[in-house]
């Protein structure tokens, strides 16, 4: 089996709409180039930082994080020669030579290296445009704070960090009038870990984030001269809300047996919602995806004709070789869901104070129900819930050695799923864009053994 893995960066598509992601991405980068050429402001930012305020204030968001993904897929100048290293490798090396340790996130190293070349245009899709400001967040990981700060320093542009306090140990004391509703996070679960609670954010936390969103609007006004306009902001917030509802609906369809869509596609269709939320384009994209999935589910059309075992994918994409995620398909194994950058319902719209609404939303997402973005206990229980909801019989854990939030819970997830739920796991151990850290022979030997185990085991009764 090992011989069959082709070294392609792209995976097989399980849904038609997924084919539209690439043109969507290309268009985004082309639009950024035009935007810059027209003298309009560009902000470098990141996932998990809602883009709505930027959209409403005519600031074009570009995302080094996503650009990291692109560098993993291309060689210099579009070369197909295997002796020419991938751009990610070229850039990561430059960053390492500058003194950034190789244990840092591949996205960080790749985009720092990209910036260090001094020629942003000599890179896939014409590169990122030089930023006019850098706006990042403290949530999810420490690296996005420090790495984007370095980029701001490098380009000598204003920097803004919006802090979402997160990962509470949610066993907080019931403070009168504040943390008063403590809900069992997965009370419906019968077996196993049940001691994790989700407490809604307290007022002082919401105040904190709300103030910062307002402050960010002022920051953007200062840097760009664009004026904040509440009506405009509300329009964008409306669209983002509707888009999120669609994405939640899509998740429901993805629970169907046989699975209508793979995790590889799940990771790729994340793009419009993660990086261009609050735009009509993103909304339209998910309408199409929703319709396609609805049809597939009605027609009982699965990704593979004979679905033998269903698996979760834990972690981000191995972007340098996404074909890995199709590895089990010819023996009937399919990755059905990837609980990362997990979606949660948005709080209700409050047009009279969109900043507070956004604060509440970001806090709920970063501190509460967001899988690897929450506390470790929340991450584990997210995975437990996902296994049950999506009827998974096994899980592949991406031991993402350079990403702390993904790698820290790995051992515990594997242990709890195996010991308490009898769900076996195997691992992929490397960086997500720097293929120098990947050992194919070792990985596939492990995966083959795992496949046998899965075939023997058969489906799980939930």
């Amino acid at each position, binding site marked *: 089996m090992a011989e069959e893995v082709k070294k392609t960066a792209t995976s097989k598509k399980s849904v038609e709409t997924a084919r539209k992601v690439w043109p969507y991405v290309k268009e985004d980068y082309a639009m950024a180039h035009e935007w810059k050429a027209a003298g309009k402001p560009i902000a470098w930012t990141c996932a998990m930082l809602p883009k709505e305020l930027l959209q409403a204030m005519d600031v074009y968001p570009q995302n080094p994080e996503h650009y990291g993904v692109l560098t993993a897929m291309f060689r210099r100048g579009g070369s197909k020669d295997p002796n020419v290293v991938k751009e990610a490798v070229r850039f990561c090396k430059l960053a390492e030579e500058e*003194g*950034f*340790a190789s*244990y*840092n*996130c591949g996205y960080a190293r790749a985009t720092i290296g990209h910036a260090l070349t001094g020629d942003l245009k000599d890179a896939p899709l014409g590169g990122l445009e030089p930023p006019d400001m850098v706006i990042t967040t*403290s949530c999810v*990981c*420490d*690296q996005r*704070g*420090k*790495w984007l*700060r*370095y980029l*701001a*320093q*490098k380009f*000598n542009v*204003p*920097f*803004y*960090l*919006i*802090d979402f*306090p*997160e*990962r*509470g*140990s949610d*066993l*907080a*004391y*019931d*403070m009168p009038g504040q*943390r008063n509703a*403590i809900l069992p996070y997965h009370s419906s679960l019968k077996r196993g870990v049940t001691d994790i609670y989700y407490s809604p954010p*307290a*007022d*002082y*936390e919401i*105040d*904190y984030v709300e*103030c*910062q969103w307002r*402050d960010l609007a002022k*920051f953007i006004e200062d840097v760009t001269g664009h004026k904040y306009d509440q009506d405009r902001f509300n329009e964008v917030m409306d669209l983002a809300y509707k888009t999120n509802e669609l994405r939640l609906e899509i998740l429901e369809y993805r629970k169907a047996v046989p699975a209508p869509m793979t995790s590889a596609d799940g990771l790729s269709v994340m793009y419009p919602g993660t990086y261009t939320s609050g735009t009509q384009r993103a909304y339209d994209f998910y309408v199409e995806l929703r319709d396609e999935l609805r049809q597939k589910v009605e027609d009982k059309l699965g990704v593979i004709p004979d679905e033998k075992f269903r698996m979760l994918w834990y972690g981000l994409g191995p972007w340098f070789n996404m074909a890995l995620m199709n590895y089990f398909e010819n023996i009937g194994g399919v990755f059905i869901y990837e609980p990362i950058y997990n979606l949660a319902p948005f709080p209700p719209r409050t047009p009279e104070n969109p900043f507070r609404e956004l604060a509440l939303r970001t806090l709920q997402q970063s501190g509460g129900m967001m899988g690897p973005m929450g*506390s*470790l*206990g929340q991450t584990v229980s997210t995975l437990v819930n996902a296994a049950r909801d999506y009827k998974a019989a096994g899980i592949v854990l991406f*031991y993402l*050695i*350079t990403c*702390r*939030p993904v*790698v*820290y*819970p790995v*051992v*515990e997830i594997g242990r709890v799923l195996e010991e308490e739920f009898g769900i076996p796991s195997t691992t992929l151990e490397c960086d997500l864009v720097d293929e120098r850290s990947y050992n194919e022979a070792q990985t596939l030997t492990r995966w083959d053994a795992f496949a046998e185990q899965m075939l023997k085991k058969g489906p799980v009764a939930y």
Partner: protein
Amino acid sequence: MAVEFKKWLENRHDVVKEWKEKNKKDVFGCLCCITPEEIIYAADALPVRITGSSEKLEMVDSRAPIYACPFLRSCLDLAGRGIYDYLDGVVIPNACDFTARMDYWWRKLVPRANPAQQGVELCPYVLYIKHPEKIGGEMSFNYLRGEYRIFKQHLERRRGHFKPISDDMLSNAISVYNEHYGLMEQLTQLRKRGLVSGSEAFEAEFASLLMPKNEHNELMKQYLGEVSQREPKDGVRVYLLGGGVDQISYMIYKVIEECGGNVVYEDVGVGRSYFGRKIDTSKPPLDAIIEHRLDVRCPHCITEDRFPEDRFIFARDRIEGANVKGVMWFAPLYCECRNLEYPFTRDRLKEVLNIPALYLEHDYTLEGIGQLKPRIETFMEMVKS
């Protein structure tokens, strides 16, 4: 080293247990500088720093991945093995992605049930403080006040009894801690005059993390009296940045001295690194503590500045007038907070102050630290002339 310090350094667990037995008081384990020790002290409990050890890891691998800070992994291992069972509570701030998850592991590895009301613990065994990642300004101040109020409420409800922590109790704690900060400042001045070496100063300060500050203050006064009589003696002066403070990482001070250097000031996780000033006694006590804690330049935190270069400025202010020849980083493996700051800070140090830097990474083993010696020797030789 004054003998009294030595006892607390070399035998830390037993000495604390003994102290606890004798004084019949609670002991809280803390991680990192940003923990508001003063509040714990005011609650009539002893805050002690959690540290690791060079012993072989026994159980942490079954719970946490190896791609993580070796210092914190060692701390967790000790917890899982019951070495920290004498603690009555554990305080964990979110000082990095790993510490932010320590609360989960600690609760799992050291399960303790405390008195509860409607299923919710009044004072959980593991207390978690979400320190803001963005520091400075009113926003983070107001936020941290919310966190500290909850923290204080927990402490007030220890063992299920309500025992309020009054402003007087807080003020009293502040005066003990202020005396400590003042004594540490004197120690720093003696270092700059070449009377106290980096390793000696570290020992003195490290002891303060493991013992009650009032007792430490007494020892300190005696110690300062002794050492101020000495003749100056010095090595090549370096400024040290790092993390994971304990008796293992302390070895770097020794190695540097063996190589002819001397750490004259530092930015590591001991109080002196960050608490250059005293707590403001003209303000309401809790507010003053918050303000003081927001001054900590923990590498996890980011200042509000639009054009941030805080790590450099912080270093520059400390180095000023200390005749520092070189700057050394001594960061644990996988410490991205330190590492991601390094290249920019290094360049600024070179451009503005013409001081070269050396980045050393350690795996938190004594052998590993020993292996760094040749590079330190070369660096000393390089910066000397």
